[in-house]
C-alpha cells in the first residue's frame, strides 16, 4: 500500500519539475458545476464522476479531471502562450472493477500555444516520458486527427460524414454506420415501408416534445440517404487499413504515406505526424521504437482530437495508464465562448509510479 503522504510528496516534486520547465502552477476547485461536464460528455460522465448537489448551486461534480477547469480558466483570463501545471486529487466512480482507485492524484502539464503544434506535442510527451523513464514503460501514441481527416475526405454525403465523426470515439457504432453506408446491411421491411410512405399515418396521436415536422424531416433525410450512392468498397478498405496501422513510428509513417496516395485527405494530417516525429526526435525521444497505433485513444475521453498518448506497465498490465495525454484543440473552442486556441497536455499518476517502483 502506497502512503498518501508519499504520493503527495512525489506529486509536489513532479509539479516542481514542470514549473522548472516553464509552467505556471494553478489550482482548480474540487467541486465543479455539473452542467459544463454534462454538456461536454453527456450522460456517460455520470457513470464516471461523482455527482452531488445542494439546493443553492444545484448539481456539482467531484472533479473527474483537471483539463476542463484549466481550459475554462485559461479561456476566461489567460495570456498567450501559456504553460500550466497542477497537482491534486481527481475522483472517478468505479462500478465494475473494485481494484481501480476512485480517488487518485494527478500531476499535469498543459500548453496553450498557436505557433508550433508539433513541438508543443513533443514537449508534453518528452516531459512526461522523462518523468517515468526509470519505470521502463511501454509508450503508445496515436492521432485522432488523421482519423477525422479520413472521414471528412470520404466520397459521401455531409450527413453521413457528420454521423461518422460524431462516433469516432464509439468504435462499435462507427463500424455499424460504416457497414450501413457501404450498403452491406439489408434494409428492413419496416424501413422500406417507411421510405415508400406506407407508414405515414396522421391518426397516431402525437405525444411529447418531438414534433410531427421533426419526424417528417428525418423521413426526408432517410429518403435522401437511401438515394445516396454507397461508400465504395475501396474507401472502406482504405479506412480499415488506416485503422489497422500499428507499427513503430517510422514504419507506421510509411504505411500512412502509402494509404495517403489513395486517400489524399489525410496527407496534411500525416505530414503533421511526421513533423511531430521530428520534433520528438529533436527532444531525444527514441522515435525509431516508438509505437504508433491509429486506433489508440478511440475509447478514451471524447475531447482529444489530435495527438494522443499513454504510458503503460508491461509488468503490470492490470494497472491503468501511468501517464496519458493528448491534443484537444476543439475543447478550447467549446469552452471558449467564441475564442479558441490549440492546446495539448498530459497527466502523470504519482501513486501508480510509486506502486511500480515498490515492485520487486
Amino acid at each position, binding site marked *: 500500500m502506497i502512503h498518501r503522504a508519499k504520493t503527495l510528496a512525489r506529486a509536489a516534486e513532479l509539479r516542481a519539475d514542470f514549473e522548472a520547465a516553464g509552467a505556471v502552477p494553478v489550482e482548480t476547485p474540487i467541486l465543479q458545476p455539473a452542467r459544463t461536464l454534462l454538456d461536454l460528455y453527456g*450522460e456517460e460522465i455520470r457513470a464516471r464522476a461523482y455527482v452531488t448537489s445542494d439546493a443553492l448551486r444545484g448539481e456539482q461534480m467531484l472533479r473527474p479531471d483537471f483539463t476542463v477547469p484549466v481550459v475554462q480558466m485559461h479561456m476566461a483570463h489567460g495570456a498567450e502562450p501559456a504553460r500550466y501545471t497542477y497537482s491534486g486529487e481527481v475522483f472517478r466512480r468505479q462500478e465494475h472493477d473494485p481494484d481501480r482507485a476512485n480517488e487518485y492524484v494527478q500531476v499535469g502539464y498543459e500548453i496553450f500555444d498557436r505557433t508550433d503544434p508539433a513541438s508543443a506535442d513533443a514537449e508534453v510527451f518528452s516531459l512526461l516520458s522523462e518523468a517515468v523513464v526509470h519505470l521502463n514503460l511501454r509508450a503508445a501514441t496515436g492521432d485522432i486527427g488523421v482519423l477525422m481527416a479520413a472521414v471528412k475526405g470520404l466520397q459521401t454525403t455531409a450527413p453521413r460524414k457528420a454521423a461518422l465523426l460524431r462516433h469516432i470515439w464509439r468504435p462499435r457504432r462507427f463500424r*455499424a454506420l460504416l457497414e450501413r453506408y457501404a450498403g452491406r446491411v439489408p434494409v428492413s421491411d419496416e424501413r422500406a415501408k417507411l421510405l415508400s410512405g406506407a407508414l405515414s399515418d396522421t391518426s397516431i*396521436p402525437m405525444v411529447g416534445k418531438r414534433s410531427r415536422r421533426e*419526424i417528417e424531416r428525418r423521413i426526408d433525410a432517410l429518403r435522401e440517404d437511401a438515394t445516396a450512392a454507397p461508400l465504395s468498397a475501396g474507401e472502406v478498405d482504405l479506412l480499415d487499413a488506416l485503422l489497422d496501422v500499428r507499427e513503430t513510428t517510422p514504419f507506421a509513417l510509411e504505411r500512412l504515406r502509402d494509404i495517403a496516395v489513395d486517400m489524399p485527405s489525410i496527407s496534411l494530417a500525416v505530414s503533421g505526424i511526421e513533423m511531430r516525429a521530428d520534433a520528438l526526435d529533436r527532444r531525444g525521444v527514441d522515435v525509431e521504437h516508438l509505437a504508433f497505433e491509429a486506433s489508440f485513444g478511440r475509447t478514451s475521453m471524447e475531447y482529444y482530437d489530435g495527438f494522443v498518448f499513454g504510458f503503460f506497465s508491461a509488468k503490470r498490465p492490470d494497472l491503468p495508464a501511468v501517464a496519458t495525454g493528448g491534443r484537444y484543440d476543439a475543447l478550447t473552442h467549446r469552452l471558449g465562448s467564441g475564442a479558441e486556441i490549440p492546446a495539448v497536455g498530459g497527466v502523470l499518476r504519482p501513486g501508480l509510479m510509486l506502486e511500480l517502483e515498490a515492485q520487486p
Partner: protein
Amino acid sequence: MTVKLGVPSKGRLMEKTFDWFRQRGVLLTRTGSEREYAGAVGGIEGVSLVLLSAGEVPRELAAGRLHFGITGTDLVREKLPLWEQQLQCMQELGFGQADLVMAVPKAWVDVDTLDDLDAVAAAFRTTHGMRLRIATKYHRLVRDYLRHGGVADYALVDSQGATEGTVANETAEAIADITSSGETLRANHLKVLKEEPILKSQATLWRSRMAPVDDQDRNVIKNLIDQLSF
C-alpha cells in the same frame, strides 16, 4: 440465530411467492393485523420471515441481513454492481416475468432501433438545444445498455413511477421501464423499440453470500434447500 428469508410485503408478488413455497411444504403467513408487516414460517424449523419492499431485498441480501430473499432480477442488477460476488441465484420462480425495455412515442414511425434513436437524439439536440431525455428508474442498466449500443446525446431523467406518462407531460422524450404485457405503454401511445430488451426479469430466489452462518444455521439452510428441492 435464525435463517432469515425476505419476501416482498405486498400484492401479487407476495401471494405468488407464498404459493410457490406452499407447494414445497413451507408455509409462509402474515401474522397480526392486515397492515402489520409481520410473518411466520411453518413446515420448517429455524427460518424466520421478513416482509419488506422488493426494492430493498437486494440491499439487505448484500448487507448479509437476509440469508435468502425473493425479488426481481431487474432490481438486483440495477442496485448491486458485481452482484455475483454478493449473491447467488438459487432458483427462478417462474412468475413476475417482465422485460426492461426502451419505448418511444408510437408516432415516431422513423424509429425502430437504437441506431434510429441515436440519430434522433443528435437531431433533437440540434433542434431543441437539449439532449433527448429518457425517463427511468433503472439508471445503471439503461446507461450501460446505451453505452454498449453506442447511443450519444441523451440524458436520463429520474422517474420513480408513472414513467409512461412522462412523454405526454413533456418531461421526457422516451422511457425505459419494466413491462409485462405492454398495455400501459400502448395506452400512453408508446411503442417498444425492435431490439433485445435491456433485461429480462422474473421473480427469483437469491441466497446471500454475505450473511453470517453458524453450525445451526447451516443445518437449517440445508433442510430448507432440500425441502425446496432444486
